């Protein structure tokens, strides 16, 4: 019984420590770039019927943390990628300095639009927790999309 209480206390303590860290630790990122790449062979795969979504139709950025959109076309043909036409081997780097919702025409998406939400720097404890939770969700989605692409699922 005592051992169980100790385990519960340890779990609760760890959870509280994690929550405190999430709420108080400054939000940092190794790079402010949010990179999206069109892999070589994308055009060929699309032509063969694969419905590939390389660029999400809604991208979330955060000022001061990850506020530079970087697009790279590694394919052998020009691609409409987000707001622009990109040549093979070309990259496009777009910095954001204002928190706002930006809507771009984008023929690569069924909706014809790409939305970029740029949020202010998360300065309050609640905003930091929300940002970290969103990051976790975002990276899970990216990882899933990457696995789907790699293994042709």
């Amino acid at each position, binding site marked *: 019984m005592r051992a169980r209480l100790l385990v519960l206390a340890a779990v609760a303590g760890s959870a509280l420590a994690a929550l405190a860290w999430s709420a108080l630790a400054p939000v940092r990122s190794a790079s402010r770039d949010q990179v999206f790449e069109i892999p070589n062979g994308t055009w060929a795969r699309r032509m063969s019927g694969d419905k590939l979504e390389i660029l999400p139709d809604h991208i979330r950025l955060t000022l001061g943390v990850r506020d530079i959109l970087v697009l790279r076309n590694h394919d052998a043909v020009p691609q409409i990628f987000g707001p*622009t036409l990109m040549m093979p081997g070309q990259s496009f780097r777009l910095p954001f300095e204002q928190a706002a919702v930006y809507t771009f025409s984008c023929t690569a998406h069924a909706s014809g639009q790409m939305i970029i939400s740029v949020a202010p720097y998360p300065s309050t404890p609640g905003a930091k927790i929300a940002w970290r939770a969103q990051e976790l969700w975002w990276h899970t989605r990216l990882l899933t999309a990457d696995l789907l692409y790699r293994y042709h699922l």
Partner: protein
Amino acid sequence: MNHTCATAGSIARRGFATAALSLLLVKASAAGTSGAFKAGTFDPPRLAPDFSLQGSDGHELRIDRFRGKVVLLAFGYSSCTEVCPVTLATFAQARRQLGAAATDVQVVYVTVDPQRDVPERLKKFLGNFDSTFIGGTGTDSQLATVRKEYGVTARKIPYGDSYTYAHSSFTYLIDRKGQIRALMPYGHGTDDYVNDLTILLKE
């Protein structure tokens, strides 16, 4: 910020009022350049695809006509009531802030609405902002080719007895060598244009 011109109407006073209001919100002076582009930049830059259109100045409009100058290339239509007036007013304000250096900056505005935008109409429309601006028009097919080569979209939307367009609202910045160096999304103010133009003019 919505990056399309999807609202109908003729060259509306409302559009110009919006433009004027936007300009009032923009800082009055250029605070110098930060050394970095405010626009999105391409690496490596590519040569701007050339085209041959009817210019609003009465001459053939080719992009390589302006080699040696920095070009702001935008797409739109003179009946646009929201985006285009703001963009063009921002260009005009940026040129004024650049002073004498503005002689090396050329604004080129290619229409997506050739039915209404004949050269004379474009000239009158652009003259409301800056008499040096040059518009380009042509056949549907010519303009569609230009849009394709620049990755620009334009979709005609019926509106009552008339129509409007949803179109790409960004601006290309083309350097003195004729290379597409940057893409400025809609919504950037005069200072950002002055910053980037100053960088390109110094090259």
